[in-house]
């Protein structure tokens, strides 16, 4: 981890009394104790427990002791079409949301990054859904997606198509259920990415654009040669966060579709929770959790590698 090394070098230089080495070991240990105890008890221990429990047939609140199961849970998961359907849904969700949300956020950020009036008002509008908890977002959109012609979205489509688009059962049809969840997720999440990209844009030196204007580069050339390279790390970060978010998908599905219809919206996390909680099959839930973490870890490692390449180039 090269990032850690650079960070620690920063810490070294920020240290007190570099000339006369003094240690504050006792104070330091007291200061880190509550955080470390919390992280060990509620992150590290359950993290290890996930791997351990996945090897057992185990139930919560049961008088029977856990039964050794070996890799049977993994075998069952990896031969279960429903699990693959969940995995596929996560991938579809990621494949749509990551590019669409990132491009939309980039577009909004570029629009807002101009020296025009009222930009902060528009920024407020686009950012507002971010403060809405997902449970509430799901409930509002449930009504918007209502299946008959009284549903807000159906009524809107009916009006703009002069009656040519018939009412759609958005959440109840296998073809549109996942799309509906994608739409409300983008609505809620895009403002967050927009702000991060906006910060990235403002970090690009204005002098670069001035130089480009002197060289009579047009807007498109400026965008490709200054904006995109300047945003590279920001965009990698946004893409990674959104991808991981796609695999964490749970709240919306639990509230709106319960994974249905016919598993059209089931996800890896939805199955982990229903296995452990609804079916009280903790071993299976834990095994799904382990698979989920392997996916998240892979995404993170890939992103780290991309960032490192960038450092070597620069």
């Amino acid at each position, binding site marked *: 981890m090269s990032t850690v090394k650079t960070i620690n070098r*920063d810490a070294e230089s920020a240290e007190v009394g570099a000339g006369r080495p003094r240690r504050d070991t006792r104070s330091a240990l007291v200061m880190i104790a509550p955080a470390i105890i919390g992280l060990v008890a509620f992150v590290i*221990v359950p993290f290890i427990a996930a791997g351990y429990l996945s090897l057992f047939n185990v139930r919560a609140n049961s008088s029977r002791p856990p039964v050794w199961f070996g890799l049977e849970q993994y075998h069952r998961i990896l031969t279960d079409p429903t699990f693959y359907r969940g995995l596929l849904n996560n991938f579809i969700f990621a494949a749509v949301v990551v590019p669409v949300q990132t491009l939309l956020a980039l577009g909004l950020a570029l629009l807002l990054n101009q020296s025009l009036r009222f930009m902060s008002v528009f920024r407020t509008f686009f950012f507002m859904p971010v403060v809405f908890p997902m449970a509430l977002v799901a409930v509002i959109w449930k009504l918007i997606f*209502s299946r008959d012609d009284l549903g807000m979205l159906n009524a809107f489509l009916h009006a703009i198509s002069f009656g040519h688009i018939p009412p759609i059962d958005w959440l109840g049809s296998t073809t549109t259920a996942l799309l509906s969840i994608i739409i409300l997720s983008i609505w809620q999440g895009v403002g967050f990415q927009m702000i991060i990209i906006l910060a990235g844009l403002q970090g690009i030196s204005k002098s670069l654009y001035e130089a480009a204007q002197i060289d009579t580069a047009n807007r498109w050339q400026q965008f490709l040669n200054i904006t995109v390279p300047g945003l590279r790390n920001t965009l990698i970060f946004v893409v990674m966060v959104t991808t991981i978010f796609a695999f964490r998908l749970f709240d919306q599905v639990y509230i709106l579709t319960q994974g249905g219809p016919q598993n059209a919206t089931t996800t890896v996390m939805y199955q982990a929770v229903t296995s452990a909680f609804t079916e009280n099959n903790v071993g299976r839930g834990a095994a799904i959790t382990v698979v989920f973490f392997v996916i998240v870890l892979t995404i993170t490692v890939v992103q780290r590698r991309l960032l490192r390449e960038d450092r070597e180039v620069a």
Partner: protein
Amino acid sequence: MSTRPQPTGTAPVVVTANQGPSAARKAVNYLVLIVLAVFFIAPILYMFIGSLKPADKVLNGLAGFIPESLSLDNYAGVFARFNSEATGYFYNFYLTSLIVSVVIVIGGLVVNSMAAYAFARLRWRGRDAVMLAVILLVIVPFEAIAVPLFYLLNGSRNTYYVQFIPFVANALSIYLFYTFFVGLPKQLDEAARVDGAGPWRTFLYIIVPMSKPVFASVTILTFLSSWGSFLWPVMMTDQPRYRPLPLEISVFQGQPPTDWGQIFAFGVMFVLPLLIVFLVFQRWFVQSVASSGLKG
């Protein structure tokens, strides 16, 4: 970035001369922004208007946006509906969310900033190894540990503390504090030390007062996630008394008879405190989100 020109010699005249887009461009920009803004605001507006209308006028096509026969009946209806042990009292849900979020935020600020200070500005053996471990924990999402945690804490279901205790210590918060503290000039502590202050006094009287931006960022990011927390309460609570707002609204909307006016009134009361705080401290919200992206 070897081609970067020197920023100093550029005349400011050039900037102002080339800045203003043409009137047509401006008009197109505003048009696009307004259309998009309408799409972003419509669902929120729908909820607010619907919360003030009779139930049968809410699910009503585009007429759902028309403010007609407005009243606060739905709000009264929510309080009337949740007024027994079986349904839970409305204040129960609020109290649960408030207790859980406040403990997570305040407890988290104390615990995580203290730890980050020890990592960033004190010398002690093993520091770098422990900090590396904390950074590695940042990549473990809660979803990856929710199931085993559900198993381990099963005996504590339906309590307040089980809803906040796992979230006080937070690797990401430590990391955010750490990067801020590392950036403060080291002369600060040196001066304090010369005056005879120990690590605790230096932290409390020198570092904390200088670190308001990072405290604000961590407060906002932590509060947003704890106020909306859903997955954990789904698994850990089934008694209305300990149900937080996000879980209760999902239960409410699934319970017949469905009254959308009341559900929206519930939603407004759920989000309004957050929305007001957001509009007042908007600058801080934006900065905290921006700062969360400046890592990596």
